[in-house]
């Protein structure tokens, strides 16, 4: 039977997947300074897409399940990688990392924007932005 899975973007101000995958930041109107995330209620900033490629500034592996709430990830828990990715001309953003093996992560590794499924409930998959080593399959 064909199962239709609805995709729920965790926060539409944060990123969009259509027409293309884009991560958003805020650009301070007066200074051009880029911040992340974009906060719609702060009028000093306008929403702008951030670069979709960068380099790995740092990383770690989350080996234990964070307190839930606020953590709303899949259970049973499996360790996942997190890091900071330096997006040139913008800022250094925190992100979940998608990788085949934790051992492939290293500082300065070129990374590209992707999406990850945070959890699945029934037919709804909650999706968040993430980064993966450049050139690896999605």
């Amino acid at each position, binding site marked *: 039977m064909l199962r239709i899975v609805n995709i729920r973007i*965790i*926060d539409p101000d*944060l990123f969009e997947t259509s027409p293309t995958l884009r991560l958003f*930041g805020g650009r301070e109107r007066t200074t051009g300074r880029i*911040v*992340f*995330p974009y*906060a719609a209620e702060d009028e000093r900033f306008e929403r702008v897409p951030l670069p979709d490629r960068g380099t790995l*500034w*740092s*990383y*770690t*592996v*989350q*080996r*234990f399940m*964070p*307190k839930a*709430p*606020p*953590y*709303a*990830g899949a259970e049973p828990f499996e360790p*996942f990688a*997190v*890091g*900071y990715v*330096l997006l040139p*001309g*913008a*800022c*250094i*953003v*925190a*992100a*979940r990392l998608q990788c085949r093996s*934790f051992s492939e992560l*290293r*500082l300065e590794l070129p990374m590209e924007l992707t999406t990850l499924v*945070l959890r699945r409930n029934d037919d709804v998959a*909650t999706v*968040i932005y993430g980064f993966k080593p450049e050139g690896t399959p999605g």
Partner: protein
Amino acid sequence: MKHAYIIGAGIHPFGRTEGRSGLEQGALAARAALADAGLEWADIQVAYGGSDSAGRADTLVTQLGLTGVPFVNVLNGCATGGSALFGARAAIASDEFDLALALGFDKHPRGAFDPKPAEWGLPEWYGAAGLMVTTQFFAMKLRRYMSLFDITAATLARVAEKALHNGALAPHAWRRTALDMGTILASPMVNDPLTKYMFCSPAEGAVALILASEKKARELGRTQTRIKAVTLRTRPPGSFEVFAPAIDLTPGPSPTVIASRAAYEMAGLGPRDIDVAQLQDTEAGAEIMHMAENGFCEDGEQEHWLAAGRTRLNGQLPINTDGGCIACGEPIGASGLRQVYENVIQLRGVGGARQVPNKIRNAYSHVYGAPGLAAVVILGC
């Protein structure tokens, strides 16, 4: 500058004390400090106290005595103790008060701290995605530092081994069993590169200090321990702090660096004048990075320092002589004052098995807390 002196110090053992609330531990520490100073509660003219999770410090007047004393509650995360001391010293320096109490206590349940995004002005997705975890911040700050400055995992283990060795010698510590480096390195990984025994844990404890003006200290014949500096700073632009969805491209100094520089300037001292230091060691890497941020060495020198034992009790610059947060646990309201308490003990020469053998002229302590505050205290004789 008006001088202030520490004339009394009291501590409730850190760790886990079943059946005794954080407030009760705070009251016991306060009474112990008063007894140490030879004073009564009615002598205290102003009080600054705080706890993150164990209640309102000012309610202790019901246990200590209804004297009408001005009692200010302090809530500054891990820097609560330092902030309480900051307030108490400023009150003495204002000339309005001669005797002040600085108190910090906490009693945390087992497990990681429990932050909610909304309380920190952060969006829900940040917590939902599993990015809002304090141990991740420490691991990532450390990972970058280790890569840039060639710090190895063995050095992390040396810090933890030293902490547990010193804790075994400190009656107020929680973890009092020494462990070897192999055991520390082989323990479960929490957030790479940090293993279980390299981290502190939330716990319980209380510390109280009695401060006196110069006039009062001379009158009481208790001028042994002078406060040479207390500085408190919040984060400047570009600093990398816990719970940060993003970091500026242009790095800035940490609040530790600016608090440290201000403290040396206030005291008219430099790092070489310091004989013992208690540095925030939320985890082993934090102690290492804080050695450089507080001006004691250049980035990367820690690798050699630790291997050479320079920071052990009998080394050139003993660091975390009671085992720090790693051995004592982290009751966040109390830790900053525990560090000062330990320096008072070391300056008095009554540290027993953990007494630093070198002559101590100046003792330094540094506490750091989310969302980016640091406090530095320099004491001297």
